[in-house]
């Protein structure tokens, strides 16, 4: 019989995929907090329930967000897990790192915390898991002296995140990294001090492939797109055909708008009819590229189910040029926040608020004209709230 204290977790040391249990057990040899975390997790596997208590307000001086209090309900059994707070560290745009920077960060973390991290959290932060309340301030001091800052939590602007954009992708229709950095720096106060009705997430995606799930996961989705024609390199098209790609089946027949033609010699695209879905470009990236008149589509309101049901973001501005200093974008953000501040209810996301108030009314409040691109179709019910009527004088 094995005398392991974590027989259930030990099962997860087996298998082809890297094992977090194996990794954390090694860490536990030098980190008592990691050891007790594993002990508590084993208990959860046995009891089939969580052993974390509900929240608890902790933080660092001057910040309302960035740290999430986490206390164990089995702290007497696992003292290392008694306080196990989360620290969200604002990741660099596009999650690019050097080993030097990561090593420095890990050294700081080992000095004050459990040594356990998430690369990365769902919103994008680099997450440090497991620090005692007393160590929060010294940890933050060391982090900030090494040029790292906290991300968002609670009812604030959450840490903005983006795809790797022009850093390593030919599809990027605007500079996602630059915009994300600019927005993050512009709204430091909104990011660190929660005074919104609820959370607010920004996600910057460089093209309609949306590798950061902006349309599903952010209240304010900025998705790159172009207005002119797809650029075609006919020589490369021929090479794809010669190398065995079935252009008729895999490109022409898959075009949702039937706007691609291929006669075996040249590829023609009816750009007027193109919905800019990216499929043909994805299949033949050497031959096809987005146009040159690039910018972004701005959409609003995505969220997961809590409270009123999941939503995808919907179009607010069909196309906007995005160049520094991004005045048009920032003015829009400010108008929306002012509206939300006035009309939002506590724990109501902007998407839910718009559903309650009506998109038409929302547009009036934030000073945008209604355009057909905002809807899939006009209303099909006749219950119109006409706002004016005439009276006989």
């Amino acid at each position: 019989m094995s005398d392991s204290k974590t027989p259930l977790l030990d099962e997860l040391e087996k298998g082809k995929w890297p094992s977090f249990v194996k990794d954390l057990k090694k860490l536990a040899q030098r980190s008592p907090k990691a050891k007790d975390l594993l002990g508590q997790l084993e208990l959860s596997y046995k009891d089939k329930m969580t052993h974390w208590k509900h929240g608890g307000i902790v933080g660092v001086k001057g910040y309302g967000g960035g740290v999430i209090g986490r206390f164990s309900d089995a702290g007497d059994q696992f003292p290392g897990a008694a306080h196990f707070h989360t620290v969200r560290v604002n990741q660099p745009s596009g999650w690019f790192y050097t080993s030097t920077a990561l090593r420095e960060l890990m050294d700081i973390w080992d000095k004050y915390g459990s040594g356990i991290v998430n690369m990365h959290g769902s919103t994008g932060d680099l997450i440090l898991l497991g620090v005692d309340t007393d160590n929060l301030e010294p940890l933050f001091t060391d982090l900030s002296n090494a040029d790292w800052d906290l991300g968002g939590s609670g009812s604030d602007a959450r840490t903005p995140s983006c795809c790797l954009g022009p850093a390593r992708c030919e599809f990027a229709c605007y500079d996602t990294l630059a915009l994300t950095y600019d927005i993050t720096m512009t709204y430091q106060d909104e990011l660190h001090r929660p005074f919104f009705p609820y959370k607010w997430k920004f996600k910057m995606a460089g093209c309609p492939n949306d590798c950061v799930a902006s349309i599903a996961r952010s209240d304010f989705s900025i998705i790159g797109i172009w207005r002119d024609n797809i650029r075609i390199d006919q020589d490369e098209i021929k090479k794809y055909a010669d190398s065995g790609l079935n252009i008729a089946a895999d490109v022409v027949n898959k075009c949702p708008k039937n706007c691609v033609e291929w006669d075996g010699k040249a590829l023609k695209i009816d750009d007027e009819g193109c919905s800019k879905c990216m499929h043909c470009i994805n299949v033949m990236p050497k031959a096809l590229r987005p146009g040159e008149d690039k910018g972004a589509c701005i959409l609003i309101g995505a969220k997961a189910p809590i409270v009123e049901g999941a939503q995808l973001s919907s179009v607010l501005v069909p196309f906007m040029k995005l160049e520094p200093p991004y005045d048009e974008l920032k003015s829009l953000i400010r108008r929306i926040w002012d509206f939300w501040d006035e009309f939002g209810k506590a724990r109501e996301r902007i998407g839910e608020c718009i559903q309650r108030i009506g998109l038409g009314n929302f547009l009036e409040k934030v000073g945008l004209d209604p355009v057909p691109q905002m809807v899939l179709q006009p209303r099909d019910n006749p219950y119109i709230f006409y706002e004016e009527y005439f009276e006989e004088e």
Partner: protein
Amino acid sequence: MSTPQRRTDIGPPHYEKFLHPIIKNNYGKWKYHEVLKPGVLVHVAEGGDKIYTVRAGSPRLMSSDFVRFLCDLAEKYCDGYLRFTSRNNVEFLLANKDNIEPLINDLSANGISAGGTKNTISNIVHTQGWVHCHSAATDASGLVKAVMDELCDYFTGKIELPHKLRIAVACCLNMCGAVHCSDIAILGVHRRPPKINYERLSNLCEIPSIIASCPLAAIRPTIIDGKKSVEVDEDNCMYCGNCYTVCPAMPIADPLNDGVSIWVGGKVSNARTTPMFTKLAIPFLPNNPPRWPEAVAAVKNIVEVYARGAKKYERVGEWINRIGWPKFFDLTGIEFTKYHIDDFKYAGKTYRTTTQMV
């Protein structure tokens, strides 16, 4: 005691500090990319410069030593430049093509697979689960490990798929893992109404906030032992746990009833079809740690049926839309129940209002 020197609101380090010189020189000037083999990409710039990427599946939950191990590899093979993807893969950015194979060998000697590109199952996006969350109905890291052990060959490209397949795990309806738009999703669920601790509730919680938190208005004010409190109309509770989020005295976790549900057919990309929500495939499977065999088998079954039936470039949702939901349930052998029919807001929009069944 004097406060040690500290700086605030400095924001993250500027990303330019972390960009490989080849990336810095060709920023915004990339011409095209190719997938050389599963897990290996080359990006070619207008001027001909090339940067190679090796993508590998790392667990999202890791130790500082594991991060240092990734740093060791980055230093050995690519001057210390690495990044992470939106699906928690690690990527090494290489200038030298000759380093690709030695890096992959080094990774694989340490139990880490390269893959996750093109028509594969990429790394699973997931939440904290029992590892670190108070509202979790299941664990996430363990569940993900168990699923990926079974599906690893789809990550490495050893078994090909008709198109990319994205899996997500969220441990409760808060869906921090955004499972609502994935090809296949595993979602932790609670199944019994909150158990009210009346004494704690009157000390801890604001009654109007609790009442307002319920999307179905199933929480009403009442008086218990002379103190203001609340009662839950249990027939109207859909176990969302939102009341627990605002009031710790209304715990909803319950080992006898918590478990997981399986969802299919979502996507976020605009390619071909518009983004889609995931839809319910299996309303409930038991929490069975450490390996959740029922959930793993259910996911594997759906992957295999999709791999057999879908046409090239069809995501799971596109495949199901083509064959129709009746066929999906038929092919997967999943039972269709009352629970599959929506009864929340706008439920009627999902009823079939045509004689066409496909």
